[in-house]
C-alpha cells in the first residue's frame, strides 16, 4: 500500500513554508520545505507518569515536528481515533506499565483496520530486551529505551516516514 503512495511529500516548488511574511532573508533558500511531519504522542494504559512523553514531545517540537499530544490513560480506541482524525504520519506510544505486548498489537490492528497501515508506530519507555523483536514482528518500527537521545529519535522518525511514503 505504501509503495504507490507518496502524496503527502509532494510539494509545489514554490509553495513557501516561510515562517512569516517578513522572512526576506530566508527567501533565498530555494530548497522546497517538506510538509511538517505530524506525530501523535499518546500514553496508553493506566500508569500516570507522562514526564517522559512530555520531554519527547517537546524535543520533537524543537526538531520541527508537529506533535499532537493527547495525554495519559488513553485506550487503544482513543489513540486510533485521534490518529485518524489528525491524519498523522507517526504514532509514538509511551509505555512504562509493562502492558506493551497487549497494547501495541491492538493499536496497530486498529490502525490497519481503518486504512492507516502507512502510519509508523514507535514505542518509548521500559521494554525488556527480549520483547523488542516481538514488538517489531507485531509492526512496531522502533523501540526507544531510557538511553535514547532525542536527536536519534527525531532522525529515526524522519527516515521511517520517508520510507513509508515511498521516498
Amino acid at each position: 500500500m505504501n509503495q504507490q503512495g507518496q502524496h503527502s511529500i509532494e510539494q509545489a516548488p514554490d509553495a513557501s513554508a516561510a515562517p512569516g511574511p517578513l522572512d526576506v532573508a530566508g527567501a533565498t533558500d530555494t530548497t522546497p520545505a517538506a510538509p511538517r511531519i505530524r506525530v501523535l504522542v499518546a500514553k496508553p494504559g493506566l500508569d500516570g507518569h507522562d514526564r517522559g512523553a512530555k520531554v519527547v514531545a517537546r524535543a520533537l517540537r524543537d526538531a520541527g515536528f508537529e506533535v499532537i499530544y493527547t495525554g495519559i490513560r488513553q485506550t487503544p480506541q482513543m489513540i486510533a481515533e485521534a490518529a485518524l482524525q489528525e491524519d498523522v504520519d507517526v504514532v509514538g506510544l509511551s509505555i512504562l506499565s509493562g502492558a506493551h505486548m497487549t497494547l501495541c498489537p491492538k493499536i496497530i490492528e486498529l490502525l490497519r483496520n481503518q486504512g492507516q497501515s502507512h502510519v509508523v508506530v514507535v514505542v518509548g519507555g521500559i521494554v525488556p530486551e527480549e520483547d523488542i523483536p516481538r514488538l517489531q514482528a507485531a509492526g512496531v518500527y522502533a523501540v526507544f529505551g531510557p538511553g535514547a537521545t532525542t536527536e536519534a529519535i527525531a532522525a529515526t522518525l524522519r527516515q521511517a516516514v520517508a520510507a513509508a511514503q515511498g521516498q
Partner: protein
Amino acid sequence: MRNQDPAQLIAGVRGGDRLRLAQAITWVENEHPRAVELLAALYPCGGGSHIIGVTGAPGSGKSTLVTALARAIRAAGQTVAIVAIDPTSPFTGGAILGDRVRMRALSGDPGVFIRSMATRGSLGGLSKTTGGVITVLDAAGFDRILVETVGVGQAEVEIASTAHTTVVVEAPGLGDEIQAIKAGILEIADLLVVNKADRPGADKTVQALAMMLELDGTHARPRRHHGRLVPDSQAATGTPAHAGQGESRDDARWRVEVLKTVASTEEGVETLRQRIEAHRDWLLETGEWTAREHLRAAHAVEALLRAELERRIRAQWAALDVRALVEAVAQRRQDPYHAAQRLLAGH
C-alpha cells in the same frame, strides 16, 4: 491508499468517510498541488454549517469550554466538527498541539470530528489554511463547526471574518477594567463569556465587561461596509440597557451579552449554546447572515489574493541576491524603503 486523486477525496468527504476527510484536510493544510481542485469542488457543497469562533486569552479555558459546548451541541442532536489551533514555534517550525488533552470526553462519538492545526507562521490567531479546512468540514455536512483560535491577546481578530458567531472567552483575574475598554478582541464578540466563574473575582470581571458594553452604547458588533468598520448609524446614545438579559429594546439589533460558565462542570454551557443558537436565528432573520457570508467571502478572496501576490513577488526574487540586499540595509549602505522597492521591481 495515500496516493489519492481529488475525486476520491471529494467522494469520501461528501460520503462521510472519516479517513478521506482527514486526508483531504491534510492536502489543504500542506497546500498540496491539487488542493485547489479539491476545494473548488467542495466549495459549492458548503454553506450549511454554522461556524462558531471561540477565542480568548491563553488560560481562559477555551479548550475545556469548546469540549463542553460540543457535548451540549451533541445532546441537542447536532453533529459538530472542532478545529483547534495552537501556535507554531517561529524558531523551529515545530508545534505542540495539546487541545485534545482536554477533549477526551468527546472520544468515541461518531458525530464529532476534531482536528488540531498549527499556525505555521500566521499571526492572526488562525492559520493560513484554516478557511480551506472549514470549507472541507462544511462540505462534509457538520451542523456546527467550532473554531478554537490560539490564545490571543488584543489584536488577533481574524476569527471575526471567518466565523458567523464569535464567542470571546475571559476568565477572572486576567485583566482589569482598563483591559476591558481597550479596542480589539472585545469588539469582535457576539457573545462574551466569563469562564471559570466559580473563581473569586468572577462577578467583578462580569461587571467590568458589562460596563464596557454600556459605554459602547450599541451593544452590537460594529457593522462593516465595503470591508471597513463603520459605526452603526443608529448607534444609541440613549438609555444603556443591562447586559446579560438577552432581549433587546430594538429587536433588529443584536445585543452582546455577558454569560458566566464553569466549563469543567458544564455549568452555564447549555445556556451559552442556546444564546449561540439565538444569535444564529437573529443572523438569519435580519439578513445579517447574508452580510456575514459576504464578509467571509471577501476575506477569503483577499487572503488568497495576498498569498498569490506574495508567491509571484517571491518568484521574481530568484534573480536577486536578497541576502546581500538585506546585509546592505543592516550596514546602512542601503535604506529599507528602496530595498523593498527594488524587490518589488525585481531588479
